[in-house]
Each structure stands twice: as C-alpha cells, then as structure tokens.
C-alpha cells in the first residue's frame, strides 16, 4: 500500500509541474472564458444565458492541456517500464496516474469554474452546482483523457492525436454537466443530468484504466 501512496504523491507532484500544472491550466481557462464575450458580444442577458455552458466548454479544453504528457514522459524516460515491472497491476498504476492528474489540474479547475461563470454573468446561486459538476466532470475528463494519452504513446505529435481521440469522449460530460446547469438555472429538474454526469464519471473511472493499461502494454512491447 505504501508504494501506491508513494506513486500517488509522485504523480501528483509531477502533474503539478507538468506543462505548468494548475497555474497554466487555470490561466488557459481564464483566457478562453475571456475570449467568449469578446466573440459573442457584451450584452449581459446573452452572456448570462451561455455562461454555464461556456464555463463547461472552457473546462473541457483546459483539461486537455497537460494530458499529452500523462504517459508520454514516463514512456520516453523508461519509468513506464519500471512501473509496469512491479507486482501492482498496470490498471491500478494507470488509475493512480489519472487520480494524480485530477488532483493537480481537475480540482483547481473546478475551483476556477464558478468564478469564471459568475464573471460571465451566471447567477451566484449557480456557483455550488457549477463547482460540483466541474469536480465530477474533471474526474470524467481525467480518466477518459488518459485513454487518449495512452493510445497516442509513441506517436509523433502525440498531443494533437490525444486531443482528437479524447474530444469525442468529452462530449457526454459536457452535455450532462451543461444540461444540469441549464436546467437548474431554468428552475427545471436538474438531478437527472447530474446523475448521468456521475454515472459517466464512474464508468470512466472503472473502464478507463483497463483501456489505458492495454494501450500501455501495447506501446511497451
């Protein structure tokens, strides 16, 4: 158990520094969120209507940023060999890597999401739900994103490939999360969207590591 704790600590520390870590992710997030009103126009009603959805799209894009290095660096420097050589299953190792990625970028982004949405004009009472959906969505992004990162191992310009593989997998959480927020803002029942988001995140956590481990084994052999 202690070795897995050591791995989580290392992965979180590496993700914290990878591609600038949470600061760059949050900065990128803020950048996208500022671009939107410039493109759409400054009318407060229009911005307020799209604010929760815009916060979600920016979240999905910001989650992509540091994904490409999730497995690639370990693959290049041999760490993936050494990790997979242990008696711990590779699936568990992939799970921990994604958990570290989520702790270092998903969680800070979830903190930034309500701020960005409110800055765009979302109503303040939406903030707790935006935070909760962003936190849960971040789990889905990290664990589906890991699949793309593992599949593009060994490819040149793997980051671009990762984005192309991963963006379709990001669609359901954006629909469910954005939908739940829209419903809540409109006074409609929002729990089903939130539950579906949770179900998708749970599925990603359960199945993502299996796919990642298979992709890593393929890349290593």
């Amino acid at each position, binding site marked *: 158990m202690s070795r897995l704790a050591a*791995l989580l600590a290392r992965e979180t520390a590496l993700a914290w520094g990878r591609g600038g870590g949470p600061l760059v992710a949050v900065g990128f997030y803020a950048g996208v969120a500022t671009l939107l009103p410039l493109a759409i126009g400054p009318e407060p009603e229009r911005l307020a209507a799209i604010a929760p959805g815009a916060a979600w799209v920016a979240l999905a894009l910001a989650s992509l940023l540091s994904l490409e290095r999730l497995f690639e660096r370990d693959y290049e420097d*041999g760490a993936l*060999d*050494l*990790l997979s*050589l242990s008696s*711990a299953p590779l699936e568990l190792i992939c799970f921990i890597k994604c958990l570290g990625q989520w702790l270092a970028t998903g969680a800070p982004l979830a903190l930034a999401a309500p701020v960005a949405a409110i800055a765009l004009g979302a109503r303040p009472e939406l903030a707790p739900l935006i935070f909760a959906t962003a936190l849960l969505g971040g789990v889905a992004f990290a664990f589906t994103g890991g699949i793309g990162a593992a599949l593009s191992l060994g490819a040149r310009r793997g980051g671009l490939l990762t984005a192309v593989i991963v963006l379709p997998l990001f669609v359901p959480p954006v629909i469910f999360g954005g939908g739940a927020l829209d419903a809540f803002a409109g006074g409609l029942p929002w729990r089903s969207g939130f539950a579906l988001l949770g179900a998708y995140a749970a599925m990603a956590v359960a199945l993502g590591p299996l796919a990642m481990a298979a992709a890593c084994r393929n890349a290593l052999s």
Partner: protein
Amino acid sequence: MRGAAKACSGRGLLNNQSQITALSIHAAAIRRGGRVLFQGLDLALAAGEACALTGANGSGKTSLLRAVAGLVRLEAGEISFGGVDPAEARGDGLHLVGHADGLKAARTAREELTFWTRWCGGRTATVAAAAEALDLTALLDLEVRRLSAGQRRRVALARLLAAPRPLWLLDEPLSPLDARWREGFAVLMTRHLDDGGMILAAVHDPLPIAAKSLDIAG
C-alpha cells in the same frame, strides 16, 4: 569506495518472499518489427552466476533483457525462474536498469531514488546506505537534470542496492561510467553474486567480473 560499499553488505539479500534462485531461457526466439532477431537461444543461470550478453548492435540484447522482464513477448520458447511463478518473479524478484533510467529531470536525485526504492519494495532507511555505496550522498539534493550521464547511471544503479532483489538485468550498465566507477560497480556486482544473486548484462566491453558469456548471433 570499498569501505563505503560495505555499508550495504550483510543485509541478507535473498530474504524476500520471491526467491529466484535460477533463470533459464529455453529455445527463445524474438521477433521485432517483422524480423526474427534470434531463435533457439538457450541460457541457464544459477544463483551466484553472471552472464554477459554480447552481440552486434540490433542483435536483440536489449529485447532479450526486456523479454526476461516480461515487457516483450517471446515469439517461441520459454523463460522460467526456477519454479517461481513468472509474474511473481518479475514483480518482486528482478531489477531492470537500461538506457532509459526512469529518472525525472525536474526532481531531485533523493526524491527519485527514494521513490524507486519504495516502488521496488525497499525501505527508505536503506536509501542513504545505497547512496553512500555509490558515492552519491553529496549529489542527492541536486535535480536529476544537473547530473552527468555517469552520475545519473549511478543513481539508477543505487536502486539495486537500496531494494535488494536477486536478479539484475543490466543493459550496458558500464557505458557512461568512468574507469573508477567501472571498478567500483564491479565490486558491487561481485558482492551481489557472493550473496547468491544473479546478473544478466548486455555489454560491448567484457564484464569486469567472472561471468559466462553468450553471444547473440546478429
């Protein structure tokens, strides 16, 4: 250096559960990228023995080491670990040190050595002694990016001492080391063999210890 190496001795090498006491490779063949690298390769290694793998560039030395570690699948033949379950033997019975050392440039040598020691089931307390045996104590707080190739290799090799395991798979372990450390590492290898360990090393220059040799025909 010999004195420092002593700090790590007498720790009872083979007292962990997976006691690999033999390695045997029978009629092994490996295919990489549609090309058969070698076939019908046999090798038997008993406790206390070392074997130097030689062969031209691209002849499959690294692939053979990776196959023993379970990272590459054999096209034919089998590898056994003296009756120990292969998954268990690979999980806690062997070390692989290759060109890619798994060390992260942005982290300090101490963080990396401590992590890999823990990952390999060693205790954090053994890290200091292993670092001393490889004369790394003064370098431990430097980031890995600031170490020379030879120093990096010594950090990677320190793992072998900090988390004792019976079988060492070494891929050109000596190439970045200077003359002094080639000798120093020979002492450590001899000590490992005396403790009942095994070494399979891919080399271009002869190993500086008593070892069998196996030439992989290119």
